[in-house]
């Protein structure tokens, strides 16, 4: 059947009374730049909150040699977070964990600065109280998970690697071995994602062991350990997630 298109210029005469009609608008954005002065009233309200907060939050946890940046499909910042969560999850549960992953929305800062990393900075990076769940998941479910991460443009990961093309995952390796659909794996995952957050629904109904430690605890403890050993934060993009289109 043939479609016929008409352009109609409508003139609506809806009422006889006079109304105000928005005939014009002007737009601008006020950028809040570093040179703006501060309003004294607001500063006074903030001050007591700030004073007691700073005491807690200005503690230095570790030192970073470079500025780290959030990006997809892989980032030095995401790698650092996932590496620390994987390492500490194993310590907390005293068990083998094959890999961990993190949604991009779970990284709440665009950058992690060079130099001193304070507790406050880690709270900004990972403000949520999400606990770590340890789960045993079969290869088929993980195949769904990796494809989901691929469709999302690439989520951050540690203990595994994968490539993305046409929003699908391929060349999935876990602990250096190709993903085996008939095998079970142990993963560490934020309880937010484990419960289907960010529409990560393939894990929702599977059994999980909830650790009494949060992802933020893992990052804090991991950084403290590095610092105690005199190590600086060094994270690089190593090609663990590659997008081929």
């Amino acid at each position, binding site marked *: 059947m043939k479609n*016929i*298109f*008409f*352009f*109609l*210029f*409508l*003139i*609506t*005469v*809806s009422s*006889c*009374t*006079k*109304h*105000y*009609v*928005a*005939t*014009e*608008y*002007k*737009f*601008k*954005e*006020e*950028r*809040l*730049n*570093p*040179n*703006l*002065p*501060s*309003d004294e*009233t*607001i*500063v006074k*309200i*903030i001050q007591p*909150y*700030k004073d007691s*907060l700073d005491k*807690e*939050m200005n503690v230095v946890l570790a030192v970073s040699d470079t*500025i780290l940046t959030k990006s997809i499909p892989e980032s030095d910042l995401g790698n650092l977070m996932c590496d620390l969560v994987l390492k500490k999850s194993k310590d907390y549960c005293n068990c083998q964990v094959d890999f961990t992953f993190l949604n991009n929305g779970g990284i*709440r800062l*665009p*950058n992690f*600065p*060079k130099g001193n990393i304070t507790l406050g900075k880690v*709270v*900004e990076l990972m*403000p*949520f109280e999400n606990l770590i769940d340890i789960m045993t998941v079969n290869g088929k479910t993980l195949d769904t998970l990796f494809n989901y991460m691929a*469709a999302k443009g690439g989520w951050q990961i540690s203990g595994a690697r994968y490539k993305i093309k046409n929003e699908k995952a391929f060349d999935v390796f876990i602990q250096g071995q190709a993903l085996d659909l008939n095998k079970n794996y142990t993963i560490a995952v934020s309880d937010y994602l484990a419960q*289907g*957050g*960010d529409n990560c*629904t393939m894990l929702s109904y599977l059994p999980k062991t909830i650790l009494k430690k949060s992802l933020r605890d893992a990052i804090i403890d991991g950084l403290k350990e590095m610092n105690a050993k005199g190590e600086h934060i060094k994270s690089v993009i190593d090609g663990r997630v590659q997008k081929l289109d």
Partner: protein
Amino acid sequence: MKRKTFIQKSFTAGALLAASSFPYEAFAKGDMRKITILHTNDQHSRIEPFPMDGGKFQGLGGFAQRAVLLNEIRKQEKNVLLLDVGDIWQGTPYFNKYGGELEFKLMSEMKYDASTIGNHDFDVGLDGFVKQLPHASFPFLNCNYDFADTPMEGKIQTHKIFKYDDIKVGVFGIGIELQGLVPKESFGGVRYNDPIANANKMAKHLKYEQDCDLVICLSHIGYKYDEKKVSDMDLAYQSKNIDLILGGHTHTFFTKPEEFANADGAKVLVNQVGWAGIYLGRLDFYFEKKRKGILMPGTPQLISK
């Protein structure tokens, strides 16, 4: 003195749309009205400016800095409406430690007129939100969440009408699907309803029953998505009777408002100012008194059979 130069500078730098047709004469004669809409979204507890640590947004934002701007604008403009589009909370230790109290107090001090609710405003649960409400002197607006039988029942308004002399501005809010985004224990029994259908219902009420001259939707559903998910773009195309959609959630930095033709072929604007209070959005609307429709030729409408 420094303050003044900033304001003037940014005014000339700001985008001026369709300036050529601006009816200065009518404005001078007193037949015109001007309303200044100021807006923020996704403040994410960014109380202080981003620190000078080499980060992408270093030095930007800050509540005390925004308050200076607001005071300047209020000195110059008679009719100012200050709105927020939700996700006020979550992002700095201020929220983890004080549960959102400071954000609400400061927004009240800055005389916010209304806000809507973002997904992260559920992060301390419904009781946590209700607990902080006494610190907010402004209403929270939402018309597509059903709060019946929850602690928030009766504490959220669907809309509010603001009157400036003989101009009426109707403001309402819509929120994003919470299932799959917010932990179930945080949003409890709050039920999500179709944002577009409810927005159109509310806008029609405001425009025709309440006789509003300008209808503004505060939308925390997000500007647009790669995946199939309802967005401000969908809302703009399918809407009727909304003049301005102030958006949030996707942290999108618009360089200017996007103009869309709505379901009636009329113009609807969408704007969003990124996140963290890096920008204060400003739209100055000029109104002329005329017989509705007569002088306004409609936009071309595509009719297919």
